[in-house]
């Protein structure tokens, strides 16, 4: 006698079915991600091994040549240093100012939304327009900023036209533009912190600084990490403001505002060295990946109360 085989139709459990459906829906964004994001990244890697030609049949394989060229390109070195400098200057400034403004806005109840809207406005203004207005305000001879410095008895500054000041000036413009976004993030974070913690701490006699140091700051950590990562990626890819703030000598004066992204753009599309440009995108990709992973590792802390 054969043992009764379990011939009952196989039932898929509800949980599995839900998971399958979820996967089916996820497949669409996944496909998008693979073909629109990941695949071109690999193509760039492939492209970086060739000398560019409009006709794919005539692209000459050069192996690691472009990577060797990168080592001997002082203008690339300058762009790389500038990009790191932008990030080191810009991200902390953006975080500190953003937090400061958010704390102030959190302390008031009247007009908070109006102020928030005002701070947010620059973020939604086109970068080209922002750059244009700033280049007028910062004009060394006729600009309002030097006018104000004059009233204060301070000497006029060359700002964007000086190789030593241009990078910091561009950074400030970018920070000004990003500030609103930063403030909104921090405000949301602040409003998520339960009031009870503060009340309990206050009853125990904690000072305002202690409240900030031991409740606000730790509980804002997730927002902080998010802002730092997004801000860093933004500064590492800086492009539009740099182009528009010195339109006739993009990345100048003397290459002092040149970024990796702008250098890639110029090599690829204005000088048709798409192979070399692809090699630099690989460098930028690695840079962003390493820094982001480091940040996530160093900054993330689980805080529970």
């Amino acid at each position, binding site marked *: 006698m054969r043992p009764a085989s379990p011939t009952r139709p196989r039932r898929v459990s509800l949980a599995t079915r839900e998971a399958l459906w979820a996967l089916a829906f996820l497949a669409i964004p996944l496909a998008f991600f693979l073909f629109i994001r990941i695949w071109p990244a690999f193509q760039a890697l492939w492209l970086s091994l060739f000398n560019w030609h409009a006709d794919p049949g005539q692209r000459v394989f050069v192996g690691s040549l472009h990577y060797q060229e990168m080592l001997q390109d002082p203008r690339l070195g300058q762009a790389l240093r500038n990009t790191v400098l932008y990030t080191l200057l810009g991200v902390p400034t953006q975080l500190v100012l953003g937090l400061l403004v958010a704390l102030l806005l959190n302390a008031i109840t009247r007009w908070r939304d109006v102020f928030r809207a005002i701070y947010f406005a620059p973020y939604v203004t086109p970068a080209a327009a922002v750059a244009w207005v700033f280049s007028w305000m910062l004009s060394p001879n006729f600009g309002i900023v030097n006018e104000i410095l004059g009233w204060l008895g301070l000497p006029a500054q060359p700002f964007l036209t000086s190789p030593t000041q241009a990078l910091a000036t561009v950074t400030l413009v970018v920070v000004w533009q990003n500030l609103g976004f930063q403030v909104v993030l921090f405000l949301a974070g602040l409003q998520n912190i339960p009031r009870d913690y503060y009340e309990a701490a206050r009853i125990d006699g904690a000072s305002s600084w202690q409240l900030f140091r031991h409740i606000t700051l730790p509980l804002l950590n997730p927002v902080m990490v998010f802002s730092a990562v997004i801000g860093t990626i933004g500064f590492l890819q800086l492009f539009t403001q740099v182009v528009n703030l010195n339109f006739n000598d993009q990345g100048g004066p*003397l290459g002092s505002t040149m970024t990796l992204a702008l250098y890639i753009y110029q090599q690829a599309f204005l000088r048709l060295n798409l192979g070399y440009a692809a090699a630099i995108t690989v460098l930028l990709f690695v840079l962003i990946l390493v820094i982001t992973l480091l940040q996530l590792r160093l900054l993330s802390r689980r805080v529970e109360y």
Partner: protein
Amino acid sequence: MLRVLVPLLVLFGLAWAQSPVTITYWQYDFRSKVEAVNELIKRFEAANPGIRVRHETFPYDAYQQKVATAIPAGQGPDVVNLFYGWLPTWVKAGYLQPLPEDLAKVLDNEFAAIAQASRVGGRLYGLPTAVRTLALFYNRDLLSAAGFRTPPKTWDEFIAIAAKLTVREGNRYTQLGYAMAPDGQDHHLVREVLVRQFGGRPYSDDGRRVLYGDAAGLRAFTFYTDWMRKHNVGILGNQFFPGNNAYRDAFIAGRVGMIIDGSFAIGTIRNGARFNWGVAELPNERAGARKVNYGSFWLHGLTPLATGAKREASIKFLQFLTSSETQRYWLEKVGELPARKDLIKDPQLTLDRVYGPFVISLAYAKATPFVDELGQRKVMTDAINRVLLENKDPAESWRMAAAEEQRLLDAFWKDWR
């Protein structure tokens, strides 16, 4: 049977021959040029019923990027407008195909000499409609108020006028004699004009070697940077005035006595300036010395996408765009100088108070043999800025420039095929 078939075939063949070929023309977005080309296409299509021309334009900032990506994708133009300085780069990367030999003869016989820069490696890759040169724009009102009745003929006169017109109140300038513009046209002025005027040569005849690094070149370069450092002719346009073309905008605002600019600036200055202004040939090193100028142009090239019937139609359209008739229309409509010799000789043009100095300069203008226009422009702009912004020794800055530009030339020619 044959009696039916033959006429049918003939009819079919005729229909096929008549079926319109559509070609695509690309240029960057500049209002008067777009309108002019639209009108020209109408005329061309009326004269060539079998050909349709699609006209597509892009903002200037995005133009090269569009071309760079569209042609490899097979989606781009058949006839494309480009700056002559980009030509070698585009040819090397396979973005253009050579024109037939009979057009090369037309170039040699009928076009201004600077248009020879449409050749790369001995082959012709395009023809221009219009050309441009440099000249001195001056504010007649400011000059005469300071007691100068005529524009300067020599650089010494230029310096004297400019120094007198430069006005400083407290720690700011209210007026400049000359607005320095290294990233405007001054990098051309130094490289092609001053270097030659001081007895040097910017490049070897084949364009593969930088020669301006010698003593004559250095004298020219030092002379230029001394305008600001020693002679007080003015300051950098972009430190004086805001905006993308600060030197030109400041001139239009009536705050600068003189600028050096291309004939392409005539329209903007004419529309903007609310004072009496004039144009003069570039000053010379001394009266009677050999004159030099920098000439440049945009040309129409044939891309590899133009094949078969499209190639034939594209060549026809290219010939039409560079014909005498078109060039005359272009001068009226866009205000750019014609590229054909017979039109340039027209006394109406040479005697014109605005166009005249540019047209006359065309006879002795040279086009820099760029192979990496952006890279070479940066080399020269940076050479000037190192001295003016960082107080670097001119000799050191000039040596660095010559070395860096030679590296760019070598990089281009080393794997030229």
